[in-house]
């Protein structure tokens, strides 16, 4: 699908950098800068001390991005920040680099699509990578972003894991970090005293509807959505707090009610009875965000409502609990069960949409399934490789085996030493076995997973 308006981001940094520690309260200067930048765009994200990013879209008819950059500079000057550097580009990483290398004018604009060329001669220190990784790259002779971008990504992945892939993407200007808009207003908060105190769920839900209606009205007035709601139940024995997090910032009363209700139900005992009588209910928007508006294309494909997806996913999350709605991620770890991570992720406004890689039709790899707990096996080996196995699923003769692939590590906390084999049973099952050595020198066989 084509995006009619590509994402453009302006990165704004004070020059010299703001020292928040010198302010009367930490973050004051940063907060002041972010508020000042609202003059240029309603969507401002705080990145660090004296450093913010601004949604740079919408200036086409107001003088373009140069006018936006001047407006941001002027707003910062009026807030007593002196000189600020502004970089405008397609993604956050490119905009940050542009701000860092902006010349005397303090403004550098990277035209759409020009990220890779712009980044190529710049030093790696401008990328948000760990010092250790940058130093390793330096030792290997990779000093500029172009050096990393020119490498084969699989080569970097093999050597550095996910960090290598990320470095490769960043060096090309691909940046999937979420843009979290800063909220300068007061968080809406509504409260209601209950006299007499209530000790069952039903009257509390009645009150909740009323509070949510007021909260959603306030959010609508401010042009905001709730990204996190907190519900305080105050009683004689203290305060109990329930939390509701929609999958996408919203002010849909019905959805927020369902989520708050689920949060309340988790705190009640049998028969909907509360653990302690509640004297006051406070509903607070702990985190708000601007509505997530995406430009869709009317003609290329059926339009699908992202809010409908968020609503369905939120309901699933409530019902299935933590870990019920997830996305796959990879952790830099050699132990297979630690490498595979299913992570609950909040949906947000993506500052960059990386294109998925094209699948290779000639090579459709098998899909690995890991058992939640490895199953013990008895194995007969021949020439050092498994040839026969007995387990919960019975006896299998193995017609092929490949290995060992030796894995060991974590000697400082939970040492392991394993030899993995990929085997094929006579029935055609493709299994993943490992032999785990104990410190005593003995070993035991385990079934860890299978391919399908």
């Amino acid at each position, binding site marked *: *699908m084509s*995006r009619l308006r590509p994402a453009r981001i302006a990165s704004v940094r004070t020059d010299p950098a703001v020292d928040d520690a010198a302010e009367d309260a930490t973050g004051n200067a940063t907060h002041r800068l972010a508020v000042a930048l609202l003059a240029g765009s309603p969507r401002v994200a705080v990145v660090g001390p004296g450093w913010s990013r601004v949604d740079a879209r919408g200036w086409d008819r107001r003088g373009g991005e140069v006018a936006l950059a001047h407006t941001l500079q002027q707003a910062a000057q009026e807030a007593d920040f002196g000189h600020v550097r502004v970089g405008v580009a397609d993604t956050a990483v490119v905009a940050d680099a542009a701000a860092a290398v902006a010349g005397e004018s303090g403004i550098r604009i990277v035209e759409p699509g020009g990220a890779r060329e712009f980044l190529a001669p710049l030093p790696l220190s401008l990328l948000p990578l760990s010092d250790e990784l940058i130093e390793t790259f330096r030792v290997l002779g990779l000093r500029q972003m172009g050096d990393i971008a020119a490498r084969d990504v699989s080569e970097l992945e093999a050597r550095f894991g996910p960090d290598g892939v990320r470095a490769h993407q960043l060096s090309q200007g691909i940046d999937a970090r979420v843009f979290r808009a800063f909220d300068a207003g007061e968080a809406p908060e509504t409260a209601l005293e209950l006299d007499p105190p209530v000790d069952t769920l039903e009257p509390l839900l009645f009150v909740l509807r009323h509070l949510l209606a007021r909260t959603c009205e306030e959010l609508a007035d401010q042009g905001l959505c709730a990204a996190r709601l907190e519900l305080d139940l105050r009683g004689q024995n203290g305060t109990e707090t329930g939390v509701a997090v929609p999958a996408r910032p919203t002010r849909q009363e019905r959805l927020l009610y369902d989520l708050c209700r689920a949060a309340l139900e988790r705190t009640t005992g049998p028969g909907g009875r509360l653990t302690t009588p509640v004297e006051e209910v406070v509903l607070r928007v702990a985190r708000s965000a601007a509505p997530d508006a995406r430009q869709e294309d009317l003609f290329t*494909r059926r339009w*699908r*409502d*992202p809010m*409908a*997806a968020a609503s*369905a*996913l939120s*309901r*699933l999350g409530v*019902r*299935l609990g933590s870990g*019920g*709605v*997830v*996305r*796959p*991620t*990879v952790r830099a770890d050699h132990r297979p069960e630690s*490498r*595979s*991570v*299913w992570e609950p992720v909040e949906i947000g406004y993506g500052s960059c*949409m*990386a*294109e*998925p*890689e*094209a*699948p290779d*039709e000639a*090579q*459709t*790899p*098998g*899909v*690995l*399934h*890991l058992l*939640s707990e490895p199953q013990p096996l008895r194995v007969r080996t021949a*020439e050092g*490789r498994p040839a*026969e196995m007995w387990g919960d699923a019975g006896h299998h003769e193995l*017609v*092929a*085996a*490949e290995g060992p692939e030796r894995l060991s590590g974590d000697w400082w906390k939970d040492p392991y030493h394993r030899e993995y084999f*990929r085997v*094929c049973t006579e029935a*055609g*099952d*493709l*299994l*993943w076995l490992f032999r785990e050595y104990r410190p005593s020198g003995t070993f035991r066989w385990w079934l860890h*997973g*299978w*391919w*399908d």
Partner: protein
Amino acid sequence: MARVSALETLEREIERIGIQPASTHTVSVVPTGLRVLDDLLPDGGLPRGRVVEWSGPPSSGKTAVLRASLERLRRDGESVALIDGTRALYAPDWVRLVPGEGEFWVVRPGSALEATWCADLLLRSGAFGAVALRIAEPATTLGRGVSVRLQRLAEEAAAVFVTMGPVAIASLRLGFRPGRIQPLRDTGFGPFLPPFRPVWVRVGKRGATEVPVLCPVPIQRCLPITRDRKGPL
């Protein structure tokens, strides 16, 4: 006797309703990303708004083909939800589906009943271009009532709905069967050829086609294994 006959008539009627959606618009299809399979499928791809049954023994390659199909949908910017009742999928194998327009989510229910509820909710939202349902083994058959309801929802959402497990009523049934492991033919990669194992896919009663799936066991480096009684393989 009359009651049995009436019941049979009713079942036939339900089957007819299940197979032929109420609306008469042309079935739109999405390619699977595997040309050999698309050539065999009735309209050249997986139909939207229909229940597609995906079945086969373990290691038959059905999940690999499912992933290829979902990956193709993700490349087209469709949002995809995978309901994983097995909770056994290895996350790194699925990371490729995350980037891009639209979204890729995995839902992990605790039971088969919860899994069908999840499918119902996701299809009802109309926000997903494809929903795939994997029920933990031993998979219970999705009953007629559930199948018809899910088909109706898939049709309203114009979504591809794949269920990996037996289903009472399906518009399309794909059966997977593992073939023999063999090395790749002349790929030009040199002596260490990645081996592959063909997967045989049968589409309804239309015959079978062969889909190459990379096998994780490079067989040319591990043979022969000797067996006690039968000698070398």
